[in-house]
């Protein structure tokens, strides 16, 4: 009987204490649940969005992209461009330091750029692999402690935007470090410094200079979507990324958290890999522009958005995020009859079994919103018009990513590519050359690739815009992507926190604060 009483008291105590009280982080701490782990914090090696979002708090940059897509000052307060458009001089005001006390000057900025480009380091991150190839980076010098000159090989209006993605760090501290230490023991130039990092589990940052309202940022790695949601609802985390579309209502109705929904900039598409390494009737068919165009009509993208992503979307007209796209282009409508007619005309009538040709559609699982279901739905739409589609879903990191990197996914594959709002050229630079890393389709249409020379030769923004529009029309009509949608981003946010989500997948926490009661 006594034991029974104790049990009752214990049960009452547990039930009487609100869960939020048991789990809520401290008032000076914000906890973020990420869907994927990071592999490095070396500023020149970072390539994933999650790692970049963490690094954004550890390292400063010359300038940054604001919520509305404008280049705004950060470390540098101003810059000038040479007459030929290939030399940028940034002013670095004095008074900045790194977390180890070293002064942060123009020399450190030049070092940050040159270190990333140094072939001896063999870096493959976003800075050397995407930014530097896009602007044809030539080198950086510091004529005095307050000025850094960055030389590029291509005259382009998007260079200042690209340079916002290069993380700045202090020369003396990084020169002393091995590459291994640089990837795990960053010396901060931004407002937060690394306190601890448990791979696969947790990354803790602590504020050492402004800006930032929280003393501690605790990133927790929670790969499984339902677990992230459960952690949010029990108050263990304040912000979660990549909320599953089917869990939006559960969060919104919970009374303890809400979903911040934003139209993201990630371009989701089904790629037509035109490599001749793929054989068979289907692989040959998608090398023809007529067939690719026909397949655009077969997929009901707005319905996929509505039903599978819980979001109303307009189908993409090209690889460029609106409003930077070609305004004259209209999204392909869902018209399976038209798709059938075009395939008949292209020489692919249905056989006795109702099949025109068979093709494989490959995809990774768990990387994008409801990706497996989206891919299966696309497969069903294509099968419905006689293109028998065999969907192959693979483990994202261990199987699919290596295939994609080798340009061997396909003949059809599902992928998302991060985009921007500040320049059409930024989004278009996925296909800067036939051999570009992100040209996973092996597309080589000269009408597109010759366009880059015309862009460089353009004397006015209007001339440049005309070329861009022409290239986007080629992409729309005969391009290598089955155009899908710009992925919405769903962030689960605890009611404890005031924080606004951005469209470009940047999770910036400087302005996040405790909600007023």
């Amino acid at each position, binding site marked *: 009987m006594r034991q029974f009483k104790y049990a009752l008291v214990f049960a009452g105590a547990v039930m009487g204490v609100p869960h939020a009280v048991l789990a809520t982080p401290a008032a000076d701490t914000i906890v973020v649940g990420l869907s994927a782990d990071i592999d490095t914090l070396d500023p020149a090696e970072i390539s994933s969005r999650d790692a970049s979002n963490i690094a954004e708090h550890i390292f400063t940059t010359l300038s940054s992209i604001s919520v509305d897509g404008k280049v705004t000052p950060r470390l540098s307060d101003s810059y000038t461009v040479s007459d030929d458009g290939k030399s940028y001089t940034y002013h670095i005001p004095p008074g900045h330091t790194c977390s180890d006390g070293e002064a942060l000057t123009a020399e450190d900025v030049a070092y940050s750029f040159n270190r990333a480009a140094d072939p001896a380091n063999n870096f493959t991150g976003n800075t050397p692999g995407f930014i530097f190839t896009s602007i044809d980076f030539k080198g950086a010098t510091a004529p005095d402690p307050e000025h850094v000159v960055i030389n590029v090989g291509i005259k382009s209006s998007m260079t200042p935007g690209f340079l916002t993605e290069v993380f700045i760090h202090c020369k003396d501290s990084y020169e002393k470090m091995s590459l291994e230490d640089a990837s795990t023991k960053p010396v901060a130039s931004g407002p937060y410094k690394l306190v601890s990092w448990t791979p696969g589990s947790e990354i803790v940052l602590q504020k050492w200079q402004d800006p930032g309202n929280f003393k501690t940022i605790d990133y927790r790695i929670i790969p499984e979507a339902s677990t992230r949601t459960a952690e949010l609802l029990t108050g263990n985390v304040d912000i979660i990324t990549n909320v599953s579309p*089917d869990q939006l209502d*559960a969060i919104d109705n919970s009374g303890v958290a809400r979903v911040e929904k934003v139209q993201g900039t990630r371009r989701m598409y089904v790629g037509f890999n035109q490599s001749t390494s793929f054989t068979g009737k289907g692989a040959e068919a998608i090398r023809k522009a007529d067939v690719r165009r026909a397949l655009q009509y077969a997929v009901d993208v707005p319905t996929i958005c509505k*039903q599978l992503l819980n979001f109303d979307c307009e189908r993409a007209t090209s690889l460029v995020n609106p409003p930077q796209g070609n305004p004259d282009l209209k999204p392909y409508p869902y018209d399976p009859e038209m798709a059938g007619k075009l395939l008949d005309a292209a020489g692919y009538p249905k056989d006795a079994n109702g099949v025109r040709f068979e093709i494989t559609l490959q995809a990774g*699982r768990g990387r994008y919103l*409801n990706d497996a279901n989206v891919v299966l*739905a696309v497969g*069903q739409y294509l099968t419905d018009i006689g293109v028998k589609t065999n969907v192959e879903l693979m*483990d994202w990191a*261990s199987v699919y990513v290596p295939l994609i990197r080798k340009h061997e996914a396909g003949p059809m594959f599902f992928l998302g590519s991060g985009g921007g709002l500040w320049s059409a050229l930024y989004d278009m630079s996925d296909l800067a050359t036939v051999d570009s890393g992100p040209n996973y389709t092996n597309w080589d249409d000269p009408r597109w690739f010759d366009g880059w020379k015309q862009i460089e030769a353009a004397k006015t923004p209007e001339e440049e815009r005309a070329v861009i529009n022409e290239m986007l029309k080629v992409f729309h009509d005969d391009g290598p992507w089955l155009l899908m949608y710009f992925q919405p981003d769903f962030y689960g946010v605890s009611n404890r926190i005031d924080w606004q989500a951005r469209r470009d997948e940047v999770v910036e926490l400087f302005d996040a604060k405790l909600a007023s009661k």
Partner: protein
Amino acid sequence: MTQSHPDGPFIDPAAAGLADTMVALPPQRRGDGWRRAWRSMVRGRWPLLALFILALLILAAILGPTISPLDPNRQNIMTRLEAPMVADRAGHVKFFLGSDGLGRDVLSRLLYGARVSLLVGVTAIVIGGSLGVALGLISGYFGGWTDDVIMRIGDIQLAFPFVLMAIMFLVVLGPGVFNLILVLGIGQWITYARIVRAQTLSLREKEFVEAARALGASHASIMFVTILPNVIAPLTVIASFNIASVILAEAALSFLGLGVPPSVPTWGSMLAESRDQLIANKWWLAVFPGMAIVLTVLAFNIIGDWLRDFLDPRLKSNG
């Protein structure tokens, strides 16, 4: 005559000497065994229920394409996540057990899933059992270095956690029904090999084996014609338990996305697909395939228990 295991439940058929028991049983009239088995089942009640469940499972597997109300792979994203027994405006119920995240009929997928579960379970056991029996016979009969090599290979395999090994193989070979069966089958051989080896070690010294040898029978004939029939009984018990664990392993691997392709409905992959929906209260996506797995595994385990008791009643009285 060997004694039953002192700890109660049956652990090792070799230790229990089931083969000896079978050899020692007096000759019976044809059909006597079946009648005894049936009476034993009726007396136990649970085995009868298990048999009923398995009969339903087999029927579902055989008649799945005929009796399933809809194409299990037919998607309609406009009718996704409909709850069970919800009638449309005309009062017609389209999805008796609800629809999944792509608007596919859960009942039809369950019926087709039974086919895959049985196919994978039985075939993997046949593959693993055949390999294990052959290697166990060779190992026990010849002894010496042959025995050492085969058993050490088995020890090495047992040193790897099975699921880890299966994941490794399936990542290399790629998912698919055939590869899944192969991996699950190969993962089981050592269980059979060890039991058969232990039995063979004892049987090879028996008079009837000596007699066969004296009559000039070949090694293969002695192993497969003279010894093998005497080790079948314990293997049957082990196989019935093993089918259950293989079905669970298939479900686990499909849950991890390493089982069969997405176009093949399996209970494990249905469970995996339900993960994101549980928190959204779409309970039917997890409950029905979960129940199917639980009932099937339970049925095989009950049958295994009954078989063990039936083949060696002394264990039951001690256990």
